[in-house]
């Protein structure tokens, strides 16, 4: 059977045993350890019973690569892709033209007629192990022989090592996620390659690898300039422990990627905001798409083009790619304020109000507990003001507070810092005892507050010197944004 069969629509597979799945994997020239094998593992963990294969699929990403590169090569190469759709229920070829809506759609993986680089645009539902993880996901809509389905997941694509390399794959994974969220217009993979500026003496093709400023240029050109963090110089945040550097056997300081625990909070702020974080090592790039707690440990979830979607990273410090060197976080262009300064300033203001003449006993107690560093945890995330105001109405903060916050004048994106009572949060009770909302367009040196809530009071602070409005607020904890809407 050739890659592009003119006489068939595709095929339906119903693998049951390990051998059936291995045989299917092998039929695409893949083996255990390849990204396609990881796609299959994810599908099987979600109890996939059916794989519907589309023949002669016109994948606009692959077609863009084909036009720009593969068609220029001497060996012949099909212009078409294939696409696999995974279903939890059994679907037969006889009914593939009318798949029921409740067939349990689990996602898709595009296959390209190239190896390496077999796995093209892919969006799979996350595995059950990640059910409680915070994941940066977006919803994609597909048509399977005319029947519409949708899947919510983190996009994935494999590099081909010649045209699309890992840096392109990583930028695309961030970009397609933003495009699905409607934050930017969609660019095809070949456009990302074309947007890479030639800043060095090497030829662009075959790609010798990208430098950080080239990656930044691609992020910028696609409408999501990236915040940059060198892991050797992570910012300090009030209330977050500054780690002690780790030394090697002869007393030399090891690279910060082996010990700087601040990277957990830096990365999680953006994951909590719904934005994936690209990690760069000296030779590789991949994307962190989520995190979860396992006991007292934080685990990251990655999409690495060499591995596949939803790889669980036990620890960044023992990770085989360690030491991580840099983080890049593509964000909406007008988010100028960093999450770190939003959090530090919220910390500072809670303590400042407790020391002001109008402080209530509850404010003073909150500040004392916050300064103690154990009882109160700050959770910082970016939200559109639409998402923020939508959730405010579901947090049970009272009608006055809801009105004040929903009518407050806010920029499109706001940084939100929630102060959580740790014990209440661990007991799955209402846990938010204070909240600061920051203007994301303000400067790190002069963060602009938009609204804040302390026990008993909610204050909206208008822009341009307008008059602040304080109303009565809840005196006890209220529901977190994450309890109401885990996905932004």
């Amino acid at each position, binding site marked *: 059977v050739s890659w592009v069969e003119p006489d068939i629509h595709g095929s339906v597979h119903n693998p049951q045993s390990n051998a059936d799945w291995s045989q299917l994997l092998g039929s695409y020239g893949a083996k255990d350890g390849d990204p396609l094998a990881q796609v299959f593992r994810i599908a099987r963990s979600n109890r996939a019973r059916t794989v519907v294969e589309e023949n002669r699929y016109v994948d606009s990403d692959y077609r863009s690569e084909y036009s720009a590169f593969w068609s220029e090569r001497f060996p012949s190469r099909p212009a078409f892709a294939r696409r696999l759709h995974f279903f939890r229920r059994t679907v037969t070829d006889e009914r593939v033209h009318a798949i029921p809506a409740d067939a349990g759609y689990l996602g898709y993986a595009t296959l390209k007629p190239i190896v390496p680089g077999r796995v093209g645009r892919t969006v799979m539902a996350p595995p059950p192990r990640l059910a409680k993880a915070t994941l940066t996901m977006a919803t994609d809509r597909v048509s399977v022989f005319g029947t519409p389905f949708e899947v919510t997941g983190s996009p994935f694509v494999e590099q081909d090592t010649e045209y699309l390399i*890992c840096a392109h794959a990583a930028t695309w994974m961030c970009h397609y996620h933003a495009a699905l969220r409607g934050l930017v217009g969609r660019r095809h993979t070949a456009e990302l390659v074309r947007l890479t500026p030639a800043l060095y003496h090497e030829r662009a093709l075959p790609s010798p690898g990208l430098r950080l400023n080239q990656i930044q240029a691609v992020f910028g050109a696609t409408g999501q300039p990236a915040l940059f963090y060198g892991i050797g110089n*992570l910012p300090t945040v009030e209330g977050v422990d500054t780690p002690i550097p780790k030394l090697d056997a002869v007393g030399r300081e090891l690279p910060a990627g082996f010990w700087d625990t601040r990277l957990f909070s830096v990365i999680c702020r953006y994951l909590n905001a719904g934005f994936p974080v690209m990690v760069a090592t000296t030779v590789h790039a991949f994307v962190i798409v989520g995190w979860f707690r396992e006991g007292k440990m934080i685990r990251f979830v990655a999409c690495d083009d060499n591995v596949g979607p939803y790889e669980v990273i036990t620890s960044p410090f023992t990770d085989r790619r360690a030491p991580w060197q840099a983080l890049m976080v593509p964000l909406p262009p007008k988010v100028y304020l960093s999450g770190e*300064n939003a959090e530090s*300033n919220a910390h500072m203001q809670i303590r400042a109000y407790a020391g002001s003449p109008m402080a209530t006993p509850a404010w003073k107690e909150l500040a004392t507990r916050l300064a103690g560093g154990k009882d109160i945890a700050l959770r910082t995330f970016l939200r559109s003001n639409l998402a923020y105001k939508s959730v405010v109405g579901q947090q049970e903060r009272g009608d006055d507070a809801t009105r004040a916050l929903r009518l407050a004048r806010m920029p499109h994106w706001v940084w939100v810092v929630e102060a959580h009572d740790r014990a209440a949060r661990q007991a799955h009770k209402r846990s938010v005892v204070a909240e600061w909302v920051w203007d994301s367009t303000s400067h790190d040196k002069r963060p602009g507050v938009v609204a804040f809530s302390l026990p008993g009071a909610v*204050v909206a*602070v208008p822009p341009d010197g307008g008059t602040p409005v*304080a109303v009565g607020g809840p005196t006890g904890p209220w529901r977190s944004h994450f309890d109401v809407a885990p996905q932004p």
Partner: protein
Amino acid sequence: MAAEKKPHGVLVSPDLARISEGVFRTSDEAAETLTPAERASFNEASQSVVDARQSAEALEGLLRIN
């Protein structure tokens, strides 16, 4: 003022009016209420964010990602 409060820390109009008038407009204004040690710690954190923005230069040319 305390006599005007309802039970359980609920604030009444005079409290809220004072809060409206006492809002800190800038971080510097808020920081004035902190102790010198607290202020120094906060300033260090703020400056570290600015410093972190400049760390890309140290990595430029070091990494080639492929």
